[in-house]
């Protein structure tokens, strides 16, 4: 963001290059403009957009952090769902919200560790490895939810529902706990990635890991920890998901990784790694949510949302390709 400001201040870049460099900002602005003026009720739903962006955003941020180190994780959805299931089971069994949250986070971190272990230690290609581990997490989730939902008994459900997602300050949706925690974590990780040695090493791992090793950086540890952080973030997402619907459901995991990958790619994270900030991912998430909420309000069937996001992914890749060709020249 600071780059954007300085670039604008210096007015060194032409409009063309601006559009290419900050395409996600431009897309978001256009979408919001369109929404505000052409869709009824868009403005009233901005808080919904932000709320949804936060709750699903955790997974996208988790994936983004892993992608920066040059790896990928196709199991973020079921890591979150796994955490949601754990929350509900433990709550149901013990009645303690505290225990539920702690064990959910532990399970999620464990899942992150398993991913890190298979990719970094065993050396399996990250794409395949996380498809395989996804089976494990998926089995764990479905075991309890079957093809429906797993509810905690009576009062505990109300307790769960009222504890996290729906907790609001001053009764404002925009000040709900989900959004606040999401923003806090974004700020925290943004700080981590920009301002610490570890964050810097993550970028090196994705950019040129070999050079990092030659300079004495423990690239393997960094990549492993990225998976662990990813697991942790998915864990938090799972707790909020469970709280939001008062139950654990298989739909909390199904198809979420596609959303996460789309948000990252549209935000400008590169498959090869080494590039992108959390702000980029945030933009990607917002774009995705604005589109789906907007289309929802326009009464367009939800399948069109998938269609548009598919087109958007390809569009972003094509623009990316054009910029890189231009740069080469």
């Amino acid at each position, binding site marked *: 963001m600071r780059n954007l400001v300085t670039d604008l201040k210096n007015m060194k870049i032409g409009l063309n290059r601006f559009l290419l460099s900050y395409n996600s900002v431009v897309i978001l602005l256009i979408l919001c403009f369109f929404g505000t003026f052409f869709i009824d009720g868009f403005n009233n739903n901005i808080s919904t957009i932000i709320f949804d962006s936060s709750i699903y955003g955790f997974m996208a941020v988790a994936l983004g952090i892993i992608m920066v180190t040059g790896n990928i994780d196709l199991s973020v959805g079921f890591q979150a769902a796994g955490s949601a299931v754990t929350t509900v089971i433990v709550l149901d069994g013990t009645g303690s919200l505290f225990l539920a949250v702690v064990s959910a986070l532990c399970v999620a971190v464990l899942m992150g560790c398993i991913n890190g272990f298979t990719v970094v230690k065993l050396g399996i290609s990250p794409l395949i490895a996380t498809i395989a581990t996804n089976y494990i997490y998926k089995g764990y989730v479905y075991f309890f939810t079957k093809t429906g939902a797993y509810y905690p008994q009576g009062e505990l459900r109300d307790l769960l529902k009222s504890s996290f997602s729906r907790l609001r300050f001053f009764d404002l949706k925009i000040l709900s706990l989900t959004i606040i925690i999401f923003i806090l974590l974004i700020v925290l990780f943004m700080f981590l990635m920009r*301002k610490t040695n570890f964050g810097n090493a993550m970028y*090196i791992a994705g950019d040129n890991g070999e050079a*990092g090793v030659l300079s*004495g950086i423990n690239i393997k540890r960094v990549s492993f920890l990225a998976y662990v952080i990813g697991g942790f973030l998915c864990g938090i997402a799972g707790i909020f998901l469970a709280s939001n619907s008062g139950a654990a459901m298989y739909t909390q995991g199904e198809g979420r990784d596609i959303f996460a990958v789309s948000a990252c790619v549209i935000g400008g994270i590169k498959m090869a790694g*080494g*590039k992108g900030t959390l702000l980029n991912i945030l933009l990607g998430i917002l774009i995705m949510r604005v589109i789906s909420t907007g289309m929802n309000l326009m009464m367009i069937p939800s399948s069109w949302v998938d269609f548009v996001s598919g087109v958007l992914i390809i569009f972003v890749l094509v623009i990316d390709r054009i910029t890189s060709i231009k*740069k080469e020249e």
Partner: protein
Amino acid sequence: MPEKKQPLVELKGITKSFPGVKALSDVSFDIYPGEVHALCGENGAGKSTLIKVMTGAHKPDSGKIFIDGNEIVINSTQQAMESGIACIYQELSIAPQLDVAKNVFLGNMFVNKAGFLDLKKLYRETDDILCNYIGLKVSPKKPAGELSVGQQQMVEIGRALTRRARVIIMDEPTSSLSESEADTLFKLIKMLKDDNAAIVYISHKLDEVMNLADRITVIRDGRNIITMDTKDTTQDELISHMIGRTLENLYQKVPAKQGEKVLEVKQLSKADVFQNVSFSVNKGEILGFFGLVGAGRSEIMRAIFGVDKYDAGEILINGKKLSPGNPACAIEAGLGFCTEDRKLEGLMLRLSVLQNMTLVKLPAISKAGVVNRKKQSSLVNQYVENISIKTPSVHQLTGNLSGGNQQKVVLAKWLMMNPDVLIVDEPTRGIDVGSKSEIYGLLGELSRNGVAIIVVSSEIEEIMGICDRVITVCEGEVTAEMDIEGLDCEAVLSAALGRKHRHNAEIVNNTKTGNKA
């Protein structure tokens, strides 16, 4: 003159073998603070192995390493770094998307008391190093990938400086630098020297070596030949040390009968890479293409073969114009290209000998797209036998063969298509002497069968030993064209060294035409 009390780093009796090759035998080398010590030798002489022993990338089989007089064992690159040895590799290790400052301080970032990166200090220090030491005028916040190769090299030197390296090894640092960039580098080296750092300088460009180095060590075939003070020697003496042995055994040249022109290249140009390259090759002729690393030889060949595009010029094969930028067309026209880098461009290491060898030939031994396996395996077996490729079976993965046999597989791939013109780029790089002479024999036999061969090489003796004619290239331009007969190495070398020696080459050229007349 530096005081020569105790060497900073001393290598004693280093021996290192790889499967099939003894890369270093009993090599010793020392560096004193405040000196530039050049390491000279041909490709494959063992220079890079020696460097890798010093930086901890290779472990020597025997021998000792002393730093400040204390014997140590270097187990990892990190340990070498901590001991104050830094290396600037030929292939740069830059993280292209990170900014310059973060590259300079890669793995060595400033952290404040709270444990956070001190970015202000980072940029300040980088600015300081770039301006005051290196003289690189770029913003520390620019992504390193956007710098020129030369500037990236400066960044790597900056990295060595920030590590407080006392010994900086530079492997062919000027091979991809422009003249002004090289001058900056030389100034920097002098400054480092005044700061009492020691520099190991490796370069093919002998005039640079003569200008920069205090001492020169020549190694050849993995052995120490001589270490001498630069002021006591001349470039010619250096060359003769580098070439050394007599070569009659390795090269047994039987002249082939030359026929008509097969390949003709007219005024081939590509901006910033090569200019106005014209030459032709006849049937049965072996034409050498000599030049230093980075002179543009391989680029010219790649353009002829159609892997790269070119801006202007014309290529004729058997009088027919070759369409540019299409290797498939070149192959159809009868051109074969045995590339410089076997592993990157020549072989599929994960595929078998059989698959590799018949890759180009496949359409010819198949009917309606279906490969005739009998023909395929009999053909492969025939070639394996004829050029004696040592492999347990034709289904062996090429990755498991020795370098020499790998090279023969690549050659066989091209021989199978019965080329009219065969370009071989560094045909004997990194392979043992036995295979070398076999490959030379093979090329000779081919030429007697009427194939026109272009040998690209940076080994002068190879050119002198097997070619009929030589073309020297320097900075993308043809500097001389000479018949080998009656020529001496020095003339070819100085022509390849470039413009400063241009007149020399022209004299040779004149005598050549004079002889003919």
